[in-house]
């Protein structure tokens, strides 16, 4: 299972942000864009073209699925949901990034000490 998730790594920043934005709840495209901007304090802004290009790939890979919401007033809003495979991939990517972060701290410490 973990190996299957590992096949998708490393994730591009856009895909990582999209998957994290969907981790909490189902969102429509505009909701994803707003959540990504919020996560990055406005530093990373996804455009609709980039968003839907990545969403198409995620749908194909089965990391995200489309959800039909009954009673939705605007038919142009389509909601997306993180699949169980998608959740495993996000967790695997976060684990990988934690490893990178640990390594970075180890390697950067001597530089910091030398400077002080």
């Amino acid at each position, binding site marked *: 299972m973990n190996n299957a998730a590992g096949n998708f790594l490393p994730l591009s920043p856009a895909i990582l942000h999209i998957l994290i934005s969907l981790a909490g709840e189902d969102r*429509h*495209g*505009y909701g994803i*864009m707003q959540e990504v901007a919020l996560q990055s304090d406005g530093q990373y*802004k996804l*455009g*609709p*073209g*980039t968003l*839907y*290009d990545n969403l*198409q790939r995620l*749908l*194909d*890979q*089965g990391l995200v*699925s*489309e959800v039909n919401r009954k009673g939705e007033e*605007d*038919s*142009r*809003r*389509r909601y997306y*949901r993180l*699949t169980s*495979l998608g959740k495993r991939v996000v967790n695997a990517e976060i684990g990988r990034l934690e490893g990178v972060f640990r390594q970075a701290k180890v390697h950067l410490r001597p530089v910091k000490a030398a400077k002080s």
Partner: protein
Amino acid sequence: MRIRSLYCFLLRLHPAQFRNKFEDQMLWIFDESVATRGAASLLLDVFISLIRQWVLRSGYWRNPRPTMAFDGGTALTEQLRRNAETLHRRAWRLNFLWGACGLVIYLMLPLSSHWNWIVLMMFTKAAYSYLKNRRGRRPLEQGFLSIGSSPDALATYRNQLEGKLDGLRLWNGSMTMKNINLIGGGVLVLLIVLNAAMLAKLHYRPYLEIDRGRLWQFSIGVVILAVYWLFMKRCNDRAAKAIQQEIDAMDELLTPQSD
């Protein structure tokens, strides 16, 4: 308003499958975010997307992979539904063009009189056939491919799909009932034009004012029409096949598993 039109125009230049899937959503996001993000960044984004889809993803849109069937297999059916819809729409656009071209070529033929009650009746029948078959609806009692009049919404939808399938086959002239070929609008247009062209070629005097100089042009027109007919027939067959795949997928989903 002009900026929105430009955005729509750039969206329309995207590959058809991408457009069918995301056009509405992207336009909705444009409407929601143009005030906060600014039109320039959205236009730049859609322009980059246009290049990306044609340059980097063109192979993908030509041979789209079916979506993996997660969450109860509905995603796969959804993908097939969209594919079938796209091909169906494209096929009927070509069919409309076929009828229009047939009419124009017929009017250009050097006939002394273009309109008589047989031709009028055939063109009327072709136009009626176009309107009826395009929608894919038909009376249930006709039902040669129908599954019957179930009150269930899914069965109604399936019935409509079968109607669309019948419509495409009828238009193509590839549908038979009790070993009799059913003639659809597409075949009628072909018959009218070929018949008139043949008369023109044979210099059928009571019917024609012969203009030899232009006859070869009409012959080329008829050849082009024949090639177009083959192309249109192929597109109709592809759309019919996609609809059949959707019906099969639906049946597979709805059939209770024995083990």
